[in-house]
């Protein structure tokens, strides 16, 4: 604890870095005026994605398998990346996919889409186009009619990110 009137060593409410004009110009050129945490303050983390997954899974664990993500390994433009997710399932009344959930580890928000299917779907495959803020891992979790959860993932490299253009 600090005594009354004593200045804290690191006061987070005020900018701590004082730069001369010359240093400022140099820093601007190097692109280091803001710490990375401030530049991407709104970014989610793999922990956020895990928390979003937990909301779907509850106490269950998703086993790896059955779920396939078809996404280009390198995408030029993160504003629209085609994604097809399919689940190995006969899609019968007795054995079908109830839902598919897509998560992003590095977007500002971890949730991407939740799809609700059923035996009437006939085939457990959904295609859409997604936004990606940066190169990252995309995870899909499928909830099956027998109560089990399965997951699959894919890595994508983005050369032009979504979300940042004004």
């Amino acid at each position, binding site marked *: 604890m600090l005594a009354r009137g004593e200045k804290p060593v690191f006061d987070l409410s005020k900018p701590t870095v004082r730069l001369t004009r010359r240093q400022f110009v140099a820093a601007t050129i190097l692109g280091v005026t803001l710490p990375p945490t401030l530049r991407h303050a709104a970014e989610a983390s793999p922990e956020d994605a895990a928390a979003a997954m937990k909301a779907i899974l509850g106490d269950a664990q998703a086993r790896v398998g059955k779920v396939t993500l078809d996404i280009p390994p390198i995408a030029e433009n993160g504003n629209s990346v085609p994604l097809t997710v399919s689940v190995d399932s006969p899609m019968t009344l007795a054995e079908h996919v109830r839902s598919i959930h897509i998560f992003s580890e590095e977007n500002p928000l971890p949730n991407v889409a939740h799809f609700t299917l059923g035996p009437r*779907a006939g085939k457990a495959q959904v295609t859409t186009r997604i936004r990606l803020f940066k190169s990252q891992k995309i995870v899909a979790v499928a909830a099956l009619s027998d109560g089990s959860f399965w997951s699959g993932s894919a890595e994508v490299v983005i050369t032009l990110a979504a979300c940042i253009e004004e």
Partner: protein
Amino acid sequence: MAKALIRVPTEAKKGEVFEIKTLISHPMETGQRRDEMGRPIPRDIINRFVCTYNGEEVFRADLFPAIAANPFLAFFTVATESGELVFRWTDDHGNTQTETARITVV
């Protein structure tokens, strides 16, 4: 509300699994961006899509800002009987748009 495109076969065999493709024009504003004055641009997305086949729900999507502008969705269903497919999109303000397509099952 917006222009929507739907691709559904007009005819299918009973029991056949067929693909449905939908596209609707919408900016899907993420709520993450700022305008030129630095003010946040409020989120405005289509957050829900539902497809029913003769009144029974066959596919539903809950969408988030990570879905690209002009949301595209392709999915499958089984041809059970002749009838009507209804597609309904709902945005953040509760506005909905409905499109329909007829299918003949032989």
